[in-house]
């Protein structure tokens, strides 16, 4: 059986106040002190109109915005586009907020809207809702972005026809330090998908 070749069709990074799309600077905001403020500025810059965005936690906002960068203007996104993501800090940022809200037993009012974001995979749910995806999704907590793992996982999903495209990457946030990278893997694209090419564009 001939092994099919897959491609990186598009990618973006969001880190240290800078957003790059397909390797080109898209947006920069060095003044935003927090991830929340940065995400708000980027949302306005992208001229998005999606009221649910404001309800998301910062991890979801950053992953959501990265997916918007990746998918905006694309008409070839299918419902079976799989999502495979990873990060190091899980949902720790929101976990801390939630913990703070329940520390005081005399003033114990846990917030349901904070609690729902105390899992990192919620970001994939938000992206699925936005783009009506009904697909495979998996979120892994690892020490670093493992390009080899993501390349293999995408290859398996595509070659076994579990998905026609895969959005994979790294969506990490811990105390306003954020590192987001998403890539769209498809049958056609700009770069051949290999561990090395994925690793290289992550580090761009």
């Amino acid at each position: 059986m001939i092994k099919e070749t897959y491609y990186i069709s598009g990618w973006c990074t969001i880190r240290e106040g800078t957003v790059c799309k397909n390797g080109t600077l898209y947006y920069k905001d060095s003044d935003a002190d927090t991830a929340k403020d940065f995400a708000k500025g980027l949302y306005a810059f992208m001229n998005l109109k999606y009221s649910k965005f404001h309800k998301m936690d910062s991890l979801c906002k950053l992953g959501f915005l990265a997916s918007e960068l990746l998918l905006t203007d694309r008409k070839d996104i299918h419902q079976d586009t799989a999502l495979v993501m990873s990060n190091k800090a899980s949902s720790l940022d929101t976990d801390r907020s939630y913990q703070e809200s329940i520390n005081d037993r005399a003033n114990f009012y846990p917030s349901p809207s904070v609690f729902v974001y105390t899992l990192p995979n919620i970001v994939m749910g938000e992206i699925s809702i936005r783009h009506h995806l009904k697909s495979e999704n998996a979120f892994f907590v690892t020490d670093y972005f493992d390009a080899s793992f993501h390349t293999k996982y995408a290859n398996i999903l595509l070659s076994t026809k579990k998905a026609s495209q895969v959005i994979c990457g790294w969506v990490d946030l811990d105390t306003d330090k954020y590192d987001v990278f998403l890539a769209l893997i498809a049958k056609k694209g700009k770069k051949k998908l290999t561990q090395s090419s994925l690793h290289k564009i992550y580090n761009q």
Partner: protein
Amino acid sequence: MPELKEELKEKLITQLSLEDIEIGEIGDNDPLFGSGLGLDSIDALELIVMLEKDYGIKLKDPKEGKAIFESITVMSDYIIKNRTK
């Protein structure tokens, strides 16, 4: 009563992160769920917590919220009748 309605609209916007909506856009009798402000089930839970935290009203059955959160006017009437703080 008008003050409470304005207070509720402010709380709705801040506590439910309705950043795209101004206070003036929320009518006293507009439906809050469904075709109105488009609030969802998590928002309903958040409103139940708000009733208890800010007005001392503890709902025994969360399903009661469906009627209480029909509009700002209905919410306001309910709070006036039942508030303990």
